[in-house]
Structures are given as C-alpha cells and as structure tokens.
C-alpha cells in the first residue's frame, strides 16, 4: 500500500483522498516513512515533525469528512523550502545566523498551502539564503541527487528537488532567483516552474534579491506542478510587487497539452559552445519532437542574453547586501560575543562574521562594492541597463513567437565538490535561466530525457511572456506526453530511488 501511495501523482492522490479511497493521514504516513527510510542518504530535509504532519493530515481528513472542499490537492503532502516562514516550524534559510528561529508569522505561500489543505511534511535544505546552484552552500550539510548520490541536486532549492525525486514528497515549493527552481528540477528529472515575477507572493519569503525572487512549484509531472502553482499563487496585498491579476489558467493548459500551430523560438545564444553534448542532443531532439507535434519552430536571436549573467551577478548581490543587513543580532537569530563588554557594533560584526557562510559573504561584499558611490553607475547602473536590454530582447522575440526554448542548464548534475571552489563555474549553471529572472517573465523546466554520456536527466526550458505562464505548461505537458508515448514509461522510473 505504501509504495502504491508514493507512486500516485499528486492529482491522483488528491482525487483518491477526496473519494475516500485513501486518507491524507495514510498518504502522509507513507511519505513520512519514506523520509525515515531514505533521507539519511539524500538529506533533503532540515526539519521534519512527524506528529505535527500527521496532525495536519488528520485535520484535513476531518475537514473533508465534514464536506469542506479546500481544493483538488487537499490532503496531499508537500515539502516546503526553508526560505518560507512557518509559524509551527523553524525557518533558517539554511543559515547559521537563523539557527532555531521560529517566525511569529506564516509566509503568504505557507498560508495558501494550508488553506488548500496541503500537508507540510517539513522544511527542505537549500543553499544558504538561496545563494548557490548545488546546496553545497547550506550551513547544514549538502543534499544529494537521488539519481547519483555523489552528485549535486541543483540549487538553491536542491532539498526540494531531491525530496520529490526521491519520492519523499509528491510536491515541493521552491524559489527561483536566477534558476533556483528550474536548474534543480532539470538535474533531478522533475518539472519546476518559475512563475511570472509578482505572480506568486514574496511575503514571508526570506529575501535574497527582491526584484528577482519568485516562489514556484516542483512536481514529478506537469499537471501536478500546475495544480501546486495555482494553489499558492495570486495577488497578495502584503507584497507591493504582487501582480493584481488572475492566476493564468495553468491547470487547464497542462490538461490541454496541445501545441498545434504554436510558434516556438529556439534562442540562438543559448545553444552551442560550452554545453554538454548529451544535453544539446536531447534538446535538439525535443525541438524536433515539438515540430512533429505541429509547432512552428524558428531560430530567434537575443543578443543581450550574453551579458545577462554578468548583470545578474551585480544586481542580485547588490540587493542581497542590503536585504541581509537586518541580520544584526539585535532582534532575532544568532548573537555572538554579547558578554557585556562589547559594543553593539562589535556584536553585530562578530555575529555576521560567524553566522554567514563564505558564499553569502562573497555576495554581500560584491554588492556593497557595486553600490558604492563612485562605482554605482559603472556596476549597478550598467547592470540595470543590461536588464532593460534583456527585456527588450524578450519583447522583440515574443513579437514573432509564442514561447522560447533552450536547455535549462548547460550540463547535467555535476559531482559534489567539483565547482565548490570555483564560483565562476558554479555561476554558469544558471546561464540559461537568468534572462527570465531579469525580465520577470514565466519559465518552466520539463524533463526531456537522459544524457547519453552519463545517464542523467536533461531539462528543456520553456519561456513565455509575463502572465502567459499557461503557455509554458501547455508546451511542457505536450513534451511530457510525447516522451512518455515514445519511451513507454516516465523518466523517473529509471532513477535509483524509483519506487
């Protein structure tokens, strides 16, 4: 029974719970048992409270028994990235500086998960303050890729991707600032979406880079991702940058899965040199597949994408240098050296020196420098100009095509430790995903096969204009269905952690 529940998709599980075929408590217990079984190896979770999760599940079962209709995912367990505040669980953003912090309030995404009846299993590991592409920057240990435990699960939302790939949860939340959902989804063989910026609320999301951070879903298939996307997205008056518009019809699009006549642009600048051959091979095959499904494919040039990575590594650190200033030992979190002899400034300095990891410090220093008077125009100012150019490239491209596609990430999952001392190599993992963060448009990664040379998952990135998130799901679902027909099984069934 346990394995059967784990194999069900989230939409199937939600239906089974609604019809009384199973209960949320049974499903939750199956996932909690799975976590006990495998998380010692995977280390996807930073915090799991078995009793609290079962209590939530029983409460949902009771609500359903009383005839409540919280939504199609009611009773389905979810793994929650530790960057979202939760009243009933610690929230650390995988940083020592927040060790043991219990927020007095729920993030809007957390509230909406609860309202939709989802059961929060626990909080997942991540790169500290979401800065990284491998979870190696977590202060609480590295998460491992279920496809190959010696490799990274992607990042920063690597705990979430590993949890879903290892069947420790059917769904997970993540945040995407430069690719932190799409890249881990790609390297773990999952679906991950970065909604339109402002389409999902940042309230209660511990900020990395405010103008880029976007909460989004992880799932094992496109429909499940769309259902989770719909469950927690939508306007939030507590986030000034939240878009006051209806959630795009993503679930309907995921069900429709038809791309006849759709105009698909292949981004010339995100294809070719520097990419792993197997990644390119699967990508090009998928483009042909799209053509076979009736899409009109054309090559599109986005010349400023070449400068996007550099612009990102000025904008994101600049914002983070300011966002992380609040961690000063005064009101919450770690406090070092407060022995009655030191001044507040000294305690602040000691706390930040000890509480932040090396990558966080690197970016704070980088951002502080980029915003300094005399350097502002050359660095932060120029980066904003590049950002404008990237937006214009997208606008021009979407004048002639409905969606753009590229590989999600230039390589498959790389070995743990390989890039840990080489920040530039690490930053390249987000080469293809960053443009959509700079422009704020919608993007999604869907598995498109295994690279022949290493047998590891490859992701296809689908980009659409702001508030046209439904298009990414439509194309993703079409690819998913065509590949399943072609291969006779879903990709994840080939993983070492398949159930």
């Amino acid at each position: 029974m346990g394995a059967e529940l784990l194999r069900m998709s989230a939409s199937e599980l939600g239906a089974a719970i609604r019809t009384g075929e199973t209960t949320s408590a049974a499903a939750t217990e199956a996932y909690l048992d799975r976590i006990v079984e495998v998380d010692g190896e995977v280390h996807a979770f930073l915090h799991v409270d078995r009793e609290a999760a079962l209590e939530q599940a029983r409460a949902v079962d009771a609500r359903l028994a009383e005839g409540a209709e919280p939504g199609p995912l009611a009773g389905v367990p979810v793994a929650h990235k530790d960057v979202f505040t939760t009243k009933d669980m610690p929230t650390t953003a995988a940083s020592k500086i927040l060790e043991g912090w219990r927020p007095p309030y729920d993030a809007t995404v957390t509230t909406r998960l609860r309202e939709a009846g989802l059961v929060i299993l626990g909080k997942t590991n991540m790169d500290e303050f979401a800065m990284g592409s491998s979870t190696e920057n977590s202060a609480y240990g590295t998460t491992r890729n279920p496809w190959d435990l010696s490799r990274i699960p992607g990042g920063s939302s690597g705990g979430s991707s590993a949890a879903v790939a290892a069947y420790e949860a059917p769904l997970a939340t993540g945040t995407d600032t430069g690719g932190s959902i799409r890249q881990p989804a790609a390297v773990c063989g999952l679906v991950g979406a970065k909604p339109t910026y402002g389409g999902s609320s940042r309230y209660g999301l511990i900020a990395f880079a405010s103008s880029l951070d976007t909460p989004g879903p992880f799932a094992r298939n496109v429909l499940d991702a769309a259902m989770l996307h719909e469950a927690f997205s939508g306007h939030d008056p507590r986030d000034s940058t939240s878009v006051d518009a209806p959630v795009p019809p993503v679930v309907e699009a995921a069900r429709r899965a038809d791309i006849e006549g759709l105009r698909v642009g292949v981004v010339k600048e995100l294809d070719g040199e520097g990419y792993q051959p197997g990644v390119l091979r699967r990508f090009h095959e998928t483009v042909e597949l799209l053509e076979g499904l009736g899409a009109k494919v054309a090559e599109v040039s986005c010349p400023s994408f070449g400068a996007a990575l550099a612009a990102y590594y000025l904008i994101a650190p600049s914002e983070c240098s300011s966002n992380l200033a609040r961690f000063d030992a005064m009101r919450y979190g770690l406090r070092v050296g407060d022995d009655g002899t030191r001044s507040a400034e000294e305690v602040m300095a000691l706390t930040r020196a000890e509480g932040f990891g090396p990558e966080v410090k690197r970016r704070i220093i980088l951002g502080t420098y980029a915003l300094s008077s005399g350097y502002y125009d050359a660095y932060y100012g120029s980066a904003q100009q590049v950002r404008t150019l990237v937006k214009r490239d997208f606008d021009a491209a979407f004048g002639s095509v409905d969606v753009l596609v590229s590989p999600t990430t230039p390589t498959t999952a790389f070995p743990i430790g390989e890039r840990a001392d080489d920040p530039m190599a690490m930053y390249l993992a987000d080469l293809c995903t960053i443009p959509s963060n700079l422009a704020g448009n919608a993007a999604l990664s869907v598995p498109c096969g295994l690279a022949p040379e290493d047998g590891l998952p490859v992701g296809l990135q689908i980009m659409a204009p702001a508030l046209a998130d439904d298009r990414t799901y439509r194309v993703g679902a079409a690819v998913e269905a065509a590949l399943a027909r072609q291969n006779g099984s879903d990709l994840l069934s080939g993983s070492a952690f398949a159930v």
Partner: protein
Amino acid sequence: MLGLETHVELGTASKMFCSCSTVFGAKPNTQVCPVCLALPGSLPVANGAAVESAIRLGLMLNCSIASWCRFARKNYFYPDMPKNYQISQYDEPLCTDGYLDVAVETPDGPREFRVGIERVHMEEDTGKTSHVGGATGRIHGADYSIVDYNRAGIPLLEVVTKPIEHTGEFAPEAARAYVRELRDLVRSLGISDVRMEEGSLRCDVNVSLMPRGGTEWGTRSETKNVNSLRSVERAVRHEMERQAGLLDAGQRVVQETRHFQEASGTTVSGRSKEEAQDYRYFPDPDLVPVAPSAEWIEELRATLPEPPAAKRARLQAEWGLSDEELRDLVNAEATDLVAATVDAGAPSAEARKWWLNELSRRSTEAEISLSALAITPAQVARIIALVAEGTLTNKLARQVVDGVLNGEGTPDEVVDARGLKVVSDDSALGAAVDAAIADNPDAAEKVRSGKVAAAGALVGAVMKATRGQADAGRARELILERLGAG
C-alpha cells in the same frame, strides 16, 4: 546663507509601510509587527494616506508633483534601524521646486523673504534609542542602550529648502519665521499635530557665511535635531557668531555635523564630513513606484485649506485688527484658537481677550503652549456666551475656566457642580434683598427718603450674602421697588 531640512512626522493612523498604530506614548515595543521589526521575509507596502499628505504639503508649498517616483534605500548600520537601511527617497523626490513666503519683523518694519523649497520627500522614522548610564546620555560612555521600535516606521516628510540668501543679520529670525510658517501650514492641512516637544517636527540647520565684500559662501556646518522654534533661532545665531569668530581670527570653518545644546544655546561638534558615510542609495526593489495621476493631484488640490498667511490677512480685516494686534495674536500662537472660538459663536474681541489674557496667563503658569491647555475653543465660546447672557460674571467665568482646566467637565457641568450661576431668580434674590433691608435699616431709610445712591450699600450686602452670584442690576431694581423708590 541658510538651509533648513525639516522632518514632519505625519499624523496618519498607521505607519509608513505597515498597519501598526502610530499613537504617541504607548508602552515600548507594543506597536510593532514583522514589517517594522524587519523580521526575515516581511515586506513594506506604502501607506496611501502618507503619500496623499505628502502631495498636499507639496501643493501647499507650490511644488511640482512627480508623476512617477521611487523609494530608495539608504543603507547604514544602526541598532535603532531594524532593517539597517532606511526607506527614503533619493534622486526621485515626490515634490520639487516650490516656495514659501515668510515675514520677519525688523526695526524698519516687516520684511518678506521668499524661501525656495528644493524638495519634499517621504521616508520612515527610526526606532528610539535610550542610552542608560554614563554622564551625557549619548552612546559613548553609556552602560547599555535600550531601543523602542514603536517609532520605527512612522511616516515622515522631509522638507528641504534651497539655499536662503540675503537674510543678512536677520537670518536667525528668518529661520524661525520659516519653520513657524511651515508648521502652521502643516497644521492647517491637518496632516500632523506638529508638536515640537514630542519631536513631531525636527529641524537640521545649515549655516555658512560670506566674508563682507566677498563673493563666495564659506564652508557650511549642519546642526542636527533642533527641536523648537526658539532653538532654531538660537542655533542659527550661535553658528553665525561662532563661524564669524573663527573667520575673524583667521581660522577656517570645518564642514561638519554639529549638535545643538538646549541648555547653553550653543552647538558642539559631531561627526566631521571627512568621515562621511556612503549610504549606497538604490531604488527599493520591494516597493512599486509612486505614480499619482494628474486627476488625483487635482482632486487633492481642491482639498487644500486657505494658506495661513491668507487666513491671517482675512481675519485681520474681518476682526478689524491693527498690525500690532495681529502681531500679538500671532506671537501668542493664538490665531487659530481665536478663529475657532469665533467659529463657535463668540465675538472676536471677546475671544481675543480671553485667549490673550486669561488663558495666556494660565499657559505661562503651566509652562505649556496655549493650544495644549485642556480647554477647547468651543468651551471658551460657551463661557463667553454665559457671561454675555448674564449667567456668569467675569469673576465667575474665571472660576469656570479653573474647573474646565481641572478636568471637571464642560463649562455647563462646572457651573452646575460648583453652583456658580448668577442668582437672578427673583424669589431667591428677593429673600436676599429682604434680608439686606432688614439688616440695614439706616440705608433703607435713606433710600425711602429719596437718596437713591444709598441703595449701593444694600446691593453690596446682597452680593455679599450671595457670595457674588447675584445679578447686581436685578438686585438694585428689587431694592428700589421694595423701598418705593423705583
């Protein structure tokens, strides 16, 4: 040359970027939430009422209102600033390029100055730090510091003047007149209660001198947190004298921040600008731009009150005041109180008399401002009405004022509770008159024989018996009537 930066704390019900209350004087750290404590994950949302107040002040100051502007982060570490950056406006202020006309009394009569307004922008206040232990109350030498975050996030408007030139030796008076005019304007808009003693209006004063016959202004000093009209004037005067002293002695003026010492009326050196902070301003990515529509700005323009200067001119004409009388009224900070008393039905002469004499005396005794007295213009108008209708004598009216200031209730309640009504009821008065006649047979006899002047003694006896509450005129009538001399 003068320059003033004035911070006005707005009287909005909630803070600049969260829904916390702004009421002054609550227990420390009770008016806080995740946003104004800068808990991880919290986000600011701009208070529309504060934006509206800023636009209205900008319009009153004849400024242009930006159709699009952004908030910026001013980054620096300080324990009373929860985010370690302040949300302010930097190179895109909401209001720019206005002016305010002020008048200064000089021995040669009043002189008008036009003060250019560089900008009005929105920002949030910081928390309040108290340094415990140590002699100075400043951070250096303190044993420890405590922070109250109730003030963190209170909306502020910063009004920055352009350089004010040509005020010459009247610069201190001009500075004071400007701040007073600005304060009256803010008060007339109803956007702040502008109580300087509670810190809801604070000034930074920049001063620089030009040598006689010179053509360039010297180095300026900036004196921070000057918190009363009198202090503004004293701070400017002290800085002029201090800088002149340095220049006369052939020394140079250092560009620096100075602190005003309330007790001595002097300024002392703070941080020098050489070690000035780099605030790393950048547009706050958490907040969408403020983009007031032209229609909204026009709607707000229609809500603007009469400017204080125009109002003063109008009242002077309506009440028939001489320039001196108007000046007395203005100097006593009584104009609005008198106007409100007149609005409540009192004749202007009476209203003026009460506020400038009796009530001014009370406020001086209590060492508080006239407007802080616990009596409203409507209550003063009621007291004036009670005197006019004969229910109270002036002497009794002063006792009613005592009662109201004592918190005993409205004027009518005080009259009842203290039994202060003039006795004019004929039966009560009649008894007192009869008793006076019986007790003073000599005087009564004189009146009977036609010496009407002798009635005065009898009236005095009646007044004495009624402890002054009798209507003396009516008592006299009754006495004459009873003694057949009427």
